[in-house]
């Protein structure tokens, strides 16, 4: 075996690798930590790679051979633009599209319907071509009898003909000839399934119909949502967008299909990165644990190593042997992790789909695939964690002087850790500086680095903190207390070894607890502000085909028990500086309290000559670098209107940014009088259930949805808790690993201190007092670890709340310290540590005192 560089490699392999087998519990824990880190990290990557691939495939399929796409707000743009674009000399082919999320009444589902021009789509997006099912009977005057059974391709031009992708047909259980009802406003239109869209592939749930039919059916005459372009050959790509852009009205823009796709992936990226970071932290904890166990093993096997060295084993071989131990742990843990990751991924796909519960990838059915590169990368990370954890212990072992190592009682030397305040301070200052840096490509890289540095600083601070803490303990007290204090003050390295896992896991647990608690509190508060009405009514999801017309709103307002109604219109806008569409919310603002402002006012001064007010979300303020008082031009109704930013509000719902304007302003600019959501204020004694029944009777049961704000709030918080459930579970694992770490550490310490305990027994200390000594030492170590962990956790929470969240999601939250929870958690950790040490040390204490002392002679 070349690794040991020696002929008697079998013997050496036995010495090194087999020692792992002897320390079963410690080895198992290290393996578990590494395996979990690898499994979680790889699973997150696998799930997202698959989901993104499917999403990307869908995007490519739906954009076909398009070089560029003209896109506008959600409600689309004037279709007069189409002819101007189609006839531009740089354009070889232009394909107009009207995309509609059609709500299917009575099915509680929406269907993505593409209105297409049959003759144009073939040139740019052939995968969307509809194919008519063979017409059932053609007994009439077919011009050529032999052609009578050919599909009637004019069928694709019929205004009520809809063509379903295979996935949509399966999902809806519809066949050619069936009818399907779609919702338009509060009404229903009937479409006939005339065939399929075979090119759409298996993963895409969509429908295709003629563009004129779609405009007519969905009451969208004169509107397009997209024009796909193929550029003429030989046209220089660079200058074309600029030429074409001059044709576009405000709010309509030109994107490449890749840019359109990245709008979706961009939104989910922050979420992905955060999950990956959690996995990285698990891996880091694993590394710490390897460090703990290997360090202890090195201490215990000190004489063994000294003996080997005396027999002629050179320094390098010793170090390589130990590193091989670590690498083996890494490999085995990594392999277990990889297997676990694939199992987890399969489970996730079958249980919650590809979006990990975050709702980013709806309408996509990804398939799990083997990703060799990714798998190898995570396996390598596992090995790295194992080797890195062994690095310091191996160096320590290699530097030992054999003659001294052979002497008894030398172990204590290993625990002679010096306080490293300087290094800790540097780490913390660096962390603070890193927090000032901006994110890289929307990912708070420096924030995560700062978190890592704080962890490093915390670990470096343990010896100093231990010494300091022991000084603070009263010098008087029982014998056991004094013994424990003396031991820890003299050998703070012991605390480092035992406490590293505790510090890391406590710091992470505490920081997440603080962050999640703050987030939940802020979210709860936000929901209360955003949902001031007594009852909410809508015809469909705001992106789908249902809406309330003024007449319906008036009818609802006139119902008995309804005191007031507050209509909201949702739209999306494209403004030059931000690639993704931002949300526009048009609603009455000034006479309500429903905006969680962080700056500005709900009631701006209103004078002649002032621009209409807008309240923008933190995300938008961040992205456009806007403050209260700044002007903001919004393209509404295909013209630019200058607004005045009068307030900035917190928004947990729309990462891409949102602007609120008065409904009256919106209606004046667009003439659009539709309503998406209607908030109802009920009369003081009105029964919500009765009002809901009355509304159903008025509007129709199949075409409206209602919800009480309490229910909605409960639902949202439930989703929130579920999202963070994964986080809690991982933290529980990390904490358990930390505790086990203390247990194994003290078990090892106990066996290496048998002589010391033997002497204490000889001096008359009863066995139970020695147990108490061990427990106390563990408790003190854990207390120091928990204390340092609490402080570090608080600092990390601060970074999470003030740096990482605003940078990844552009939202703020109010920091909230869950004192009670932290107190209980900290005490529990200390008690559990004491218990673990006591249990672990039992074996050592059971030994005969005489034998224990004699061993040294």
């Amino acid at each position, binding site marked *: 075996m070349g690794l040991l560089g020696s002929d008697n490699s079998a013997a050496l392999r036995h010495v090194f690798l087999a020692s792992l087998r002897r320390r079963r519990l410690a080895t198992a824990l290290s393996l578990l930590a590494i395996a979990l880190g690898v499994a979680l990290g790889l699973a997150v990557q696998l799930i997202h790679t698959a989901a993104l691939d499917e999403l990307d495939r869908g995007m490519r399929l739906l954009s076909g051979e398009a070089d560029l796409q003209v896109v506008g707000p959600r409600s689309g743009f004037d279709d007069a633009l189409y002819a101007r674009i189609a006839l531009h000399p740089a354009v070889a082919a232009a394909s107009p599209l009207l995309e509609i999320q059609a709500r299917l009444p009575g099915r509680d589902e929406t269907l993505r319907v593409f209105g297409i*021009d049959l003759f144009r789509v073939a040139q740019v997006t052939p995968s969307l071509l509809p194919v008519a099912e063979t017409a059932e009977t053609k007994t009439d005057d077919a*011009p050529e009898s032999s*052609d009578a059974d050919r599909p009637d391709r004019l069928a694709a*031009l019929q205004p009520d003909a809809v063509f379903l992708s295979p996935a949509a047909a399966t999902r809806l259980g519809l066949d050619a000839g069936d009818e399907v009802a779609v919702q338009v406003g509060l009404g229903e239109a009937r479409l006939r399934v005339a065939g399929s869209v075979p090119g759409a592939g298996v993963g895409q749930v969509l429908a295709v119909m003629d563009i*004129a039919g779609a405009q007519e059916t969905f009451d969208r*005459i004169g509107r397009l949502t997209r024009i796909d372009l193929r550029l003429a050959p030989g046209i220089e790509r660079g200058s074309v967008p600029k030429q074409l852009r001059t044709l576009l009205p405000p709010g309509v823009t030109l994107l490449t299909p890749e840019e359109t796709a990245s709008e979706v992936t961009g939104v989910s990226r922050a979420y992905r990165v955060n999950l990956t970071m959690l996995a990285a932290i698990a891996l880091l904890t694993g590394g710490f644990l390897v460090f703990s166990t290997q360090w202890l093993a090195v201490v215990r096997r000190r004489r063994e190593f000294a003996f080997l060295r005396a027999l002629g084993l050179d320094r390098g071989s010793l170090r390589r042997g130990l590193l091989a131990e670590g690498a083996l742990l890494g490999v085995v843990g990594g392999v277990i992790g990889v297997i676990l990751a694939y199992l987890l991924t399969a489970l996730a796909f079958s249980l919650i789909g590809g979006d990990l519960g975050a709702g980013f990838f709806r309408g996509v059915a990804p398939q799990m695939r083997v990703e060799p590169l990714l798998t190898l990368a995570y396996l390598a990370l596992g090995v790295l964690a194992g080797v890195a954890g062994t690095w310091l212990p191996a160096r320590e072992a290699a530097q030992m002087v054999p003659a001294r190592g052979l002497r008894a009682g030398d172990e204590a030397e290993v625990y002679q850790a010096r306080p490293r305040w300087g290094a800790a301070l540097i780490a913390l200052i660096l962390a603070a500086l890193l927090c000032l840096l901006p994110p890289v490509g929307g990912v708070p890289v420096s924030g995560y680095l700062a978190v890592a540095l704080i962890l490093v600083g915390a670990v470096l601070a343990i010896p100093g903190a231990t010494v300091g803490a022991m000084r603070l303990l009263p010098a008087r007290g029982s014998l056991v207390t004094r013994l424990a204090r003396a031991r820890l003050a003299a050998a703070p390295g012991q605390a480092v070894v035992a406490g590293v896992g505790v510090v890391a896991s406590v710091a992470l647990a505490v920081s997440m607890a603080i962050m999640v608690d703050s987030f939940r509190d802020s979210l709860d508060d936000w929901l209360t502000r955003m949902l001031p009405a007594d009852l909410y009514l809508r015809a469909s999801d705001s992106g789908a085909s249902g809406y309330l017309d003024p007449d319906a709103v008036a009818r609802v307002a006139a119902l008995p028990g309804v005191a007031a109604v507050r209509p909201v219109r949702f739209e999306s806008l494209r403004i030059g500086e931000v690639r993704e569409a931002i949300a526009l919310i048009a609603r009455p603002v000034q006479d309500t309290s429903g905006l969680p402002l962080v700056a500005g006012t709900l009631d701006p001064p209103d004078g002649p000559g002032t621009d209409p007010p807008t309240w923008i979300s933190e995300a938008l303020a961040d992205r456009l670098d806007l403050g209260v008082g700044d002007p903001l031009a919004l393209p509404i109704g295909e013209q630019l209107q200058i607004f005045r930013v009068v307030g900035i509000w917190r928004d947990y719902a729309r990462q891409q940014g949102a602007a609120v304007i008065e409904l009256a302003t919106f209606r004046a600019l667009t003439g659009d009088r539709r309503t998406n959501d209607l908030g109802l204020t009920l009369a003081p004694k009105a029964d919500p259930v009765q009002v809901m029944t009355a509304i159903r009777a008025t509007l129709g049961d199949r075409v409206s949805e209602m919800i009480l704000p309490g229910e909605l709030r409960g639902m949202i918080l439930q989703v929130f808790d579920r999202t963070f459930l994964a986080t809690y579970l991982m933290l529980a694992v990390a904490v358990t690993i930390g505790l086990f770490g203390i247990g194994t550490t003290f078990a090892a310490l106990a066996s290496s201190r048998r002589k010391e305990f033997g002497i204490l027994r000889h001096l008359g200390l009863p066995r139970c007092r020695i147990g108490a000594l061990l427990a106390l030492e563990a408790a003190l170590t854990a207390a120091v670890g928990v204390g340092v962990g609490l402080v570090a956790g608080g600092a990390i929470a601060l970074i999470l709340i003030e740096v990482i969240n605003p940078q990844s999601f552009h939202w703020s939250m109010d920091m909230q310290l869950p004192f009670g929870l932290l107190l209980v958690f900290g005490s529990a950790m200390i008690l559990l540590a004491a218990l673990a040490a006591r249990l672990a040390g039992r074996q050592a204490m059971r030994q005969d005192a005489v034998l224990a002392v004699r061993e040294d002679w």
Partner: protein
Amino acid sequence: MRAWLALVLMLGWPISSVAASDFATVVEGRSLAFPADTGAHPDFRTEWWYITGWLTDETGSERGFQVTFFRVGTGIGADNPSRFAPRQLILAHAAIADPAAGALIHAERIERALDPVAGAAVGRTRAWIGDWELVLEEEGTQYRTRIRSDAFDLDLALAPPGPPLLNGREGFSQKTPDPSNASYYYSRPQLAVDGRIRIERADLKVSGHAWLDHEWSSEIMPAEARGWDWIGINLHDGGSLMAFRMRTDDGSPLWAAATLQEGTAPARILVPEQVRLLPRRRWQSPRTGAEYPVEWTLEIEGRTLRLEPLMDDQELDGRRSTGVVYWEGAVRVYDDEREIGRGYLEMTGYAQRPDNL
């Protein structure tokens, strides 16, 4: 008359979802007025402007060409206010028969009428899809057509020497023994062509003679018609000859007719009994396996003429796009060994049904 079936085949669908009663009917006795009737007639179901002819470049090389614009009323979306409402479809077909290439070079487009992207104007000939167009210029003295495709471009001016030549009974052209199968049909023979063509990289100045057919109607061909054979010949004496015959499934003639103008004499309309088209030599397409009679004997009023193609392979193989296969090619007409005219021959209904290929 010609493109009846070609159109049906080209579209690849039977236009049977719409009743003929949705459209205006062709009746005998309506007199055609020009230039108004050179424009589109959207009340009728189908209409086409069909140009075929011979071109000679400066080196003396001869080629055939074809430019066709179809308008099809769908009967769909009559009351839909959408600008995309597919009330009318416009189709265009262009081809060059170049003996050097050995086969037709062709291109096609299809679009719903949507001003200004594609359409067929009323009042004066103007049909277009994007940058493809056929226009009768304002003074009425010449047509212009422009076609641009990957394989070739056409940019031609076509000047008619005289007024339109009415086919059938004053422009009422009967197609079968049943007079309800009829169209309005006039031709413009002896168009003097001048312009440029591009084939691959070669940009050529060309001149020659061409033929324009303009025909519109609503009534679909009877089910028993299998296909037809049509010719439009510019005679070297300045006259012209149009003749067609409709075939049944077994290949026997269902109907035939001709319009013959000799020299400067007035045109004469020939009845079915005066027109016979007899196949002479057959050629089998290596692509589709279809067998076409590429040489013909033509018996007109007892005179026997012979038709020979510019090249055998002038089959239009649209299986990959429109699913249509037919033969449309340049031909010479001989009286004994003397060439007396040049024109185009169209043969449809010889290929297998595209579905079976």
